[in-house]
């Protein structure tokens, strides 16, 4: 075999190796995983539907909706006379207990990562009256559209209040 032929064989070998390398790198590369359509659809609706459903729910002990109990929680926070004293608890504690009970049977049971908070704002100062979350769901994590439900306090109370639910993916 001449020197030129040996060089050609070398080149051919290099081409084969590069081709095989490319083949294996593409063939065994993990495809980029995007969340399934059902997850995207479910998560987008879940946060807002969850809050709407929660606030509409009637509590059998208080004989009031969760929305009414949330307004009473603001009254309690502002040290104003309250309307409900369910199970001898103030409205904020009772609201938190019911919310925890519902979350245990839903989002916690489905192993969702989330942050649920009840905010009250007056004169530019925002306060968290209630917060249920796990430390995993931070603002830096990818999230579905947040659910936001305002609670009308007018005309009884000043300021504004709202529930916010963030669900992390």
């Amino acid at each position, binding site marked *: *075999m001449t020197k030129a*032929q040996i060089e050609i*064989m070398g080149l*051919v070998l290099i*081409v*084969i190796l590069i*081709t*095989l390398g490319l*083949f294996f790198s*593409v*063939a065994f590369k993990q*495809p980029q995983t995007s969340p*399934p*359509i*059902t997850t995207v*659809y*479910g998560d987008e*609706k*879940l946060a807002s*539907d*969850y809050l*709407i*459903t*929660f606030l*509409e*729910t*009637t*509590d*059998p002990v208080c004989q009031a*909706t969760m929305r009414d109990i949330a307004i009473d929680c603001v009254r309690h926070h502002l040290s104003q006379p309250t309307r409900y004293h369910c199970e001898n608890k103030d409205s904020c504690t009772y609201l938190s207990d*019911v919310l925890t*009970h*519902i979350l245990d*049977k*839903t989002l916690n049971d*489905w192993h969702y990562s989330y942050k649920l908070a009840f905010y009250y704002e007056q004169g530019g100062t925002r306060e968290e009256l209630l917060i249920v979350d796990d430390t995993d769901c931070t603002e830096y994590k990818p999230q579905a559209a947040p659910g936001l439900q305002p609670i009308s306090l007018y005309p009884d109370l000043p300021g504004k209040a709202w529930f916010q639910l963030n669900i992390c993916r």
Partner: protein
Amino acid sequence: MPLPVLKNKAQLHMGETIMVLIIVVIIGIVAFVFYVRMTEDKIQGKLIEIEELNAVETAQLASSLYELRCSKPGVTDLCFDIHKALALQDLRTTNPTLFFTYYYDLFGDAKITLQRIYPADDDIILYDNNAGTQQTVKRLAIPVPLHNSSDDTTTFGILIIEKYSQQRGIP
């Protein structure tokens, strides 16, 4: 003496040609395997997407069923009447032929359950048709208020949609 020289050259050319052919065939096989694998992945992805879309379609149909909607004025769109849900469950058990004649076209192979979370704690099975074994399940959960028109109370409910589809696999 010139004959062996000629024979050697011809053999050398023949050898080169065979080598080139082998290399071309190897590259061809690699390209073909690669193409088949890519096509297979694309088809699998498309099938999964179709199943996902079917599940979403079933969820949308179930959550907007007119026969379950609250009839009380002023109630939000997202609301089921508990009595209507119980009546639908009764129809499914008492007259399955009539029930499935109508609802099979809508939901196909699926299970639709209404879970009462708070204050009640039970399940109302609205639809259940699991045709066979070896099926994959796509699951969707939609929170929905369940209104009881008898005492004007609302329960926290979850509409669970489980859509079945045939198990796929490469033999």
